[in-house]
Every structure is written in structure tokens, then in C-alpha cells.
């Protein structure tokens, strides 16, 4: 039954590396738009999506906007925590993510819970 008053939490899953395609940017655009409507929103970075969180990105010379810089605005837009798949980090040999991001590492049980708690899942 539709219930307009109920908050339906959204989960956005980022599984694409930045810059190679538009997924990271267009995912962020949706996250910012959701926050304008004060929707409950969680964001999960998994697979190649964790490359979006690497420090020291400077895409000026490929004429791209800095996605990492934009991700840092998420807390101001009401997204207080960014969930990051611990296993994806390990598999990719990544030991260091940008320290200014509000990152929470999650295991596969917690990831499964994020999916099940969401009303709608958008994957990019």
C-alpha cells in the first residue's frame, strides 16, 4: 500500500571508478538531489567504486571536475557516513583513503543489511 508519509530510505551503490565514465558524477548528482528533498540516504562504495575515495586526485589535465572534492560536500548535504566495502579495499591492495571523508568500513553482513533496509537501491 502506498504511504506518502513514510520515509523510504534510498541506498545508492557506487561500484564504478571515477573519470572513465559518467557513473560516479551522475550518482553524486542523484545523491545531492535526494538530499534536497530530505530523503533518508545511505551511500555504499564497493568494487571499483572505492577508487573514487583515493586521495590526491587532480583531474585538471583530463579536463574533468574533481569528484573527490565534490564527495567531500556530502556531509553538508546531510549524508553523514559513507559506507566502504572492506573486502573491496583488501582485494585491490588499497590501504589509504582520503582522510577528510567520513568513512565507515563495512563487512559483507553489514552490506547485506544496507540492501535489505533500503526501500529502493540505485546502482551506478
Amino acid at each position, binding site marked *: 500500500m502506498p504511504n506518502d508519509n513514510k520515509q523510504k530510505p534510498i541506498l545508492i551503490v557506487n*561500484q564504478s571508478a571515477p573519470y572513465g565514465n559518467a557513473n560516479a558524477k551522475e550518482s553524486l548528482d542523484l545523491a545531492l538531489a535526494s538530499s534536497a528533498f530530505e530523503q533518508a540516504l545511505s551511500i555504499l562504495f*564497493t*568494487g571499483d567504486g572505492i577508487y573514487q575515495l583515493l586521495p590526491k586526485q587532480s583531474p585538471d589535465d583530463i579536463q574533468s571536475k574533481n569528484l573527490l572534492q565534490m564527495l567531500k560536500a556530502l556531509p553538508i548535504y546531510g549524508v553523514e557516513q559513507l559506507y566502504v566495502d572492506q573486502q573491496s579495499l583488501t582485494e585491490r591492495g588499497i590501504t589509504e583513503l582520503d582522510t577528510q571523508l567520513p568513512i565507515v568500513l563495512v563487512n*559483507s553482513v553489514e*552490506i*547485506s543489511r544496507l*540492501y*535489505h533496509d*533500503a*526501500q*529502493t*537501491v540505485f*546502482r551506478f
Partner: protein
Amino acid sequence: MILHTLNKSPSNEALSEQLSQVIQADDQVILLEDGVYHSLLENNDTSHWLGIAAHVHALNDDLKARGLTSNNSAIKTIDYADFVRLSSECDKVIAWY
């Protein structure tokens, strides 16, 4: 109960792994587009989504187009009306692509 849709062939292993991580025993899967090639596989591995899902369905039009028939007894052939019905019966639909 979640309904998962999958539109990529088994060669996209990362996608299958992600789905396997999320799927639970009472969930269902609809194979569409190149996803229907999964119907050629038998997989009773309890860590793989094919071995976990309560029911796996495949869109008949997409099977037929690719020269596949539903020989796999574990996979039920459906049409788009069934797709709509399953979408309304489950709690939510997650697309894997």
C-alpha cells in the same frame, strides 16, 4: 523477499559476486537480456546466488531470441506479465547490470 533482476551473462563475475553477497534464501531472481545465459549453468554452490535463490526465472522472449530453451528444470520460464506480477509480490526490486 527481494526480487533481483540480472541482465548480464556469467562472464561478468564481479556482478554475480555482488549479487551473491546480497541475496537471501527467500529471494527470487529474474534473468533478462544476456542474463538468460545463466540458465545454461547448474550451480548448487551455496555461496553462489544460483544456489541460494528460492526461485530463478528467465524471460521467455530473451531465451528464445538467443536460441536457448528452458531445459534447466531449476529455472522457470516467464513472460513480462509475470515480471510485473513478481515485482508487485516482492518487497522491492533490485536491478543488477
